[in-house]
């Protein structure tokens, strides 16, 4: 297995010939090896351009891009691209090739032996939960949209690249399947642990997928680079606050499960679940969902159950309010904006 590699952008700019304003302006950030970095921003913020600078599909005007400490600008573009997984929104599977042939694209370009390619294709199909016996010989036209997207991801993973670039990979999928594919990709990423740069215009997707989020504003300027929680708690400026939305408090609650909340001790109450109101929630529930359910139940407190079904503690609206204001009162971490050096400790996030 190739190790995931650290990606570093150093003052990267892109100016198209004949245009006064740069498309990307002085972009600097570092994605630690094995992390998912989401590039997010409104249209015109250059997020796709930034992505394509990394695999040199668009030439960089100035600055440097380092992959595993080595400048990509010194590399032969074709060889570089074979080392970087590439997934695009429209997937771009080759319609005249079977699923197996599609996945084998980069290994074939690299001249792998056919037995090794066959074994790798089998392994990848199993990784994305497609039955190799059934799916290998199918053509893309015979797959569902979700299956095509998964094959696209498998194809990008085929040569075990240290870096994956994903350009709105789930953008063309309906919301229900998108959620499923996102979860599936996070499970996959937990196994393969690639360095991933993921472009989206959807802040909710960014919060869900990213270990780190780079928010770009128009003109390709980095507005903030930080963990989702930090961006939601301490937006660097009005632009970021507006971009993440007025509901950023709620989004933050979605990042936390009841297991992470310091609940009101149940020792004054009976541990019998039946005695503690109508709402009984398992500890994996996100605080956001808990809040929503409590509001529907006229603001009644909810009992949080541990894995055995015993009451672990009590959650009240006041407690949630307290939680939000405590977080906001914490000093913002340094490095908002160009924060390439900040390493923020994160508690386990919901859904990971």
């Amino acid at each position: 297995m190739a190790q995931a590699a650290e990606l570093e952008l150093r003052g990267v700019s892109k100016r198209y010939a004949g245009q006064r304003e740069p498309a990307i302006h002085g972009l600097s950030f570092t994605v630690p090896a094995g992390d998912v970095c989401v590039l997010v921003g409104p249209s015109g913020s250059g997020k796709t351009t930034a992505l394509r600078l990394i695999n040199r599909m668009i030439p960089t005007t100035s600055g440097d891009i380092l992959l595993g400490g080595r400048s990509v600008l010194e590399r032969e573009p074709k060889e570089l691209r074979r080392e970087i997984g590439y997934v695009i929104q429209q997937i771009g599977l080759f319609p005249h090739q079977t699923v197996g042939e599609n996945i084998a694209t980069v290994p074939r370009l690299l001249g792998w032996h056919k037995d090794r390619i066959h074994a790798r294709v089998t392994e990848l199909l199993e990784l994305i939960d497609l039955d190799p016996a059934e799916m290998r010989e199918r053509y893309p036209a015979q797959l569902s949209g979700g299956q095509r997207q998964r094959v696209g991801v498998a194809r990008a993973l085929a040569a075990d690249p240290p870096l994956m670039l994903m350009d709105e990979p789930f953008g063309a999928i309906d919301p229900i399947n998108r959620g499923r594919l996102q979860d599936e990709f996070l499970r996959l990423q937990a196994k393969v642990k690639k360095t991933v740069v993921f472009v989206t215009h959807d802040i909710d997707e960014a919060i869900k997928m990213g270990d780190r989020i780079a928010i770009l504003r128009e003109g390709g300027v980095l507005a903030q680079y930080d963990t989702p929680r930090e961006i939601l708690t301490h937006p660097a400026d009005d632009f970021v606050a507006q971009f993440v939305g007025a509901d950023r408090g709620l989004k933050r609650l979605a990042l936390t499960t009841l297991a992470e909340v310091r609940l009101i001790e149940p020792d004054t109450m009976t541990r019998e679940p039946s005695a503690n109101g109508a709402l009984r929630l398992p500890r994996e529930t996100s605080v956001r969902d808990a809040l929503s359910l409590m509001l529907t139940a006229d603001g009644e407190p909810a009992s949080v159950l541990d894995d055995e079904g015993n009451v672990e503690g009590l959650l009240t609206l006041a407690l949630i309010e307290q939680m939000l204001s405590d977080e906001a009162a914490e000093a913002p971490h340094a490095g908002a904006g160009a924060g390439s050096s900040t390493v923020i400790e994160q508690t386990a996030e919901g859904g990971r």
Partner: protein
Amino acid sequence: MAAAAGSIVASVVAAGEPVIPNYGAQSSSCVVHNHLFCTDWVSHNWGPVLWPALRGHILLALVAVGIGFVISLALALAAYRYGCLERPTTVITTILYTIPSLALFELLVAPVGPNVYSAEIALVSYTLLILFRNILTGLRGVPAEVLEAAEGMGMSRRQALVRVELPLALPAIVAGLRIAVVTIIALATIVYTIYNAGLGVPIHTALGEGPFKTELIAAGGLAILLALTADALLVLVQRLLTPWTRARAT
């Protein structure tokens, strides 16, 4: 030409009479009375007349479409890469396509001579527009995201062309070949005006002799059968080469 005209006049004068002068030795009563179709004449003349004409016809068409395809492919690849070449190439091949075929054959005789070269040059020139257009359309029809994926995965331009673009253009290319082949098989029947080859030779002879119905139907029928067979073969080739076009969601 004057002799042919003369014999047509003679046949009009002698209408209703047996008018087959050259097949005396083998002539059956069917032939002598110029009935609609005499199988005995066909079996006697398959070896000396019909088969050589058919073989010559196949060769004329194969060579013309083969050379035409190579030239058109080169032109289409050039125009695909350098878009500015499309318009001039289209104009020139269209002009070639619109020249009346009989005139073109005669025009070529002066510089080239009444030989197989003139015949092939004329036939090739009629394939260019069809093949060029279809190949270019096929290449242009490759979806942008497929090209982006090919580039993003590290294919060179040549690899993308050979592994992705040309295979995906195949249905359009074969469609062009089918039209070109049928067109050229039909056109090759008038090659006889400058060069003694192809099914046009027995058709012309038959027309000059009555017309001699059996020979006219046999030779003309062979030309039609040849065109249909070639078309069917190309359909088969396409099915074998492009299995993905029939793959649909199960």
